[in-house]
C-alpha cells in the first residue's frame, strides 16, 4: 500500500515537474508575448476607433478614422499606391536578380567566395541610415551617378534622380535591388541541395541547359521562392527608413511610403488613433496578400515527396 502511494506520488510529482519545468523555460516568451504583442494588438483595435493625442484621454469616435481614410485623406491613397508600386517592382526584381546570380555563382567558377562576399555586403549594411544618406548623395544632382554617366557616355544628365518626381521612387527601387544579397544566399543554399544526379540523368536524356533549368532547377527551388516571396513582401510593405532619410516622402509625395504616412500621422501630428487605424488597414492588406500567395502556391510550388 505504502509502496503504491509512494509510486503514485512519484509519478504525480514527476509529471507535475515537467509541466512546471516547461512553463518555467518558456515563461519569458509568455510574458513577452502578452506584454509586447497581445496587449498592444488588442489596444491597436481599440485605438482604431478613437481620437487620441497622448495628452488628453482617448475619445471614442466610432468609424470616423476609417471614413476619413477613404474620403478625406488623399495621402492615404497616394501612400498606398507608392508602396504597391515599390513592392510590386522592387521585390520581384530583387528576387529574379538574386536567383540569376545564385545560379551564376553555383556554376563552380573561381573566386566564388570573393564574389559572394562582394554581393552580400550591401545587404548587411543596406538598412542603415549611413547607407540611406550615402544613396541620396550618390543620386543627387552633383552625385557620383551623374559623374559616372558623364565619364562613360560623355554627357551629363542635368537631373537629380532623387529630387525629380519621375525618378525618385526608381532610385529607391534600385537601392532595394542593390541589396539582393540575402535572398541570393538562400537561393544558393537551395541550389546546393539539388542532387547532381538529377542533372546527370537529364543530360543523358538529352536536355539542354535551358530545359534543365526549367524542368529541374526552377521546380525544386519553388518552396524557397515562396519563402522569399512571403518574407520580402511583408518586409516591403514596412519600408520606412529610405523614404524618410533619402527623400522625406517627396518630391510631390512620390516616395510617401505607407509607413512614413503612419509615422507622420502618429508622431508629427500626434494623431495616434488615426495612425492606429492606418496600421490596422495595412495589417489587413498584408494578411490578404500573404494568404493569396499561399493560396496560389499549391499551383506552382513543388514539394518533393519524402521517403
Amino acid at each position: 500500500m505504502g509502496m503504491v502511494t509512494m509510486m503514485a506520488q512519484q509519478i504525480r510529482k514527476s509529471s507535475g515537474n515537467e509541466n512546471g519545468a516547461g512553463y518555467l523555460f518558456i515563461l519569458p516568451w509568455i510574458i513577452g508575448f502578452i506584454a509586447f504583442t497581445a496587449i498592444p494588438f488588442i489596444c491597436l483595435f481599440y485605438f482604431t476607433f478613437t481620437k487620441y493625442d497622448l495628452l488628453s484621454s482617448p475619445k471614442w469616435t466610432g468609424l470616423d478614422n476609417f471614413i476619413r481614410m477613404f474620403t478625406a485623406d488623399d495621402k492615404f491613397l497616394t501612400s498606398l499606391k507608392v508602396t504597391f508600386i515599390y513592392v510590386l517592382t522592387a521585390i520581384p526584381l530583387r528576387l529574379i536578380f538574386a536567383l540569376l546570380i545564385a545560379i551564376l555563382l553555383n556554376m563552380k567558377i573561381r573566386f566564388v567566395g570573393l564574389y559572394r562576399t562582394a554581393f552580400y555586403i550591401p545587404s548587411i549594411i543596406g538598412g542603415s541610415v549611413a547607407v540611406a544618406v550615402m544613396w541620396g548623395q550618390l543620386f543627387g544632382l552633383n552625385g557620383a551617378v551623374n559623374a559616372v554617366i558623364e565619364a562613360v557616355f560623355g554627357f551629363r544628365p542635368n537631373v537629380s534622380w532623387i529630387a525629380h518626381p519621375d525618378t525618385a521612387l526608381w532610385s529607391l527601387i534600385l537601392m532595394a535591388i542593390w541589396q539582393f544579397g540575402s535572398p541570393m544566399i538562400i537561393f544558393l543554399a537551395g541550389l546546393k541541395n539539388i542532387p547532381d544526379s538529377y542533372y546527370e540523368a537529364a543530360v543523358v536524356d538529352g536536355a539542354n541547359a535551358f530545359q534543365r533549368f526549367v524542368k529541374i532547377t526552377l521546380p525544386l527551388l519553388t518552396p524557397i521562392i515562396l519563402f522569399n516571396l512571403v518574407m520580402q513582401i511583408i518586409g516591403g510593405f514596412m519600408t520606412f527608413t529610405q523614404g524618410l532619410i533619402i527623400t522625406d516622402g517627396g518630391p510631390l509625395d512620390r516616395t510617401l511610403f505607407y509607413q512614413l504616412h503612419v509615422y507622420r500621422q502618429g508622431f508629427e501630428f500626434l494623431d495616434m488613433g488615426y495612425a492606429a487605424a492606418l496600421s490596422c488597414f495595412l495589417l489587413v492588406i498584408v494578411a490578404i496578400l500573404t494568404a493569396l500567395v499561399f493560396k496560389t502556391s499549391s499551383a506552382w510550388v513543388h514539394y518533393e515527396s519524402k521517403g
Partner: protein
Amino acid sequence: MIRNSKFSWTKLMIQLMCLVIGAASLYPIAWMIASSFKESSQVFVSAHSLIPAAWDFSNYSNGWKGFAGITFGTFFKNTFIIVCTTVLGTIVSCSLVAYGFARVKFKLKGFWFGTVMLTLLLPGQIVQIPQYIIFHQMGWVNTIYPLVVPAFFGSAFFIFLIMQFIRTIPYELDEAAKIDGCSRFGIFSRIILPLIKPALVTSAIFEFYWSWDNFFGALIYLGKPQMYTVSVALRLFADPSSGTDWSAMFAMATLSLIPPILVFFMFQRYIVEGISTTGLKG
C-alpha cells in the same frame, strides 16, 4: 580542343559578369569611404573618383565633434549599450524558450508554440503605435527600456532558429544525463547549451545587425540628443536646412559601418549558414 576553348569562353563571360556586378555592389560604399577623405569642397567635384586629390583626415575629427556639444563618442557609446544589452537578452531568453519548446512536454504547448509562429509572420511595425502608447503611459519614453527590455522576453525568429538546431541533437544525450541525475535545467545548461553554440552565435549576429540598424525605435523613443544612437545622430547631421559638411558626414557614416562589416568578416561562416538554414529546413 574546340569544345575546351568554348568552355573557357563561357567561364570568362561569367567572370566578367561577376566582376561588373561586384563593382556595382561595392562602388557606392567605396565612393562613400573615398568621399570621407576628400576635402569638403571637393566631394561633388569630379564626384565619381574613388581617389581623393588630396587626403583630408580632418573630416574625421570634424565629424566626431557631432552637434549640440555632444560628440559621436556619446552616440557610439549609446548604440553599443543598446546593442550589447539586446544581444545578451535575446541569447539568454531565446535559448531557454527554445529548449522548453524543443524538449519539454507540457500542457498547451501547441497553443504557445502557435503564438511563436503567429508572431513570426506578424510584422512588428503593425503594433508600433499601440506599443508606443503603452510605453508612453509607463513613462518609458526617453529611456532605453523600450529598446532593450523586450529582447529579454524572446524573439520568435530566434526561438524558431534555435529550436530547429536543438532538434538535430540526439535525444539520447538528454536521457543519459537524466539517468545520471541531471535536472532539467542541468541538462539544458550542461548538455544542450554547449552544443547549440553555432545557433547562438548566428542569433547574436543577426540581433546585432537588427539592433545596430534599428532606426525607427531609436527615432521615436529617444528624444534627447545626449541619448541619440548613431543612426539618429547621422540623420540629424545630414539635415539639409543647416548646410551639411558632407565629408564629415561621410566620415561618421563610414565609422558607423565598421562594426557591422567587422562582424561580417569575423563570423561570415555563421551568417551564411544561418541564412541558409532559417525556416528552410524544418
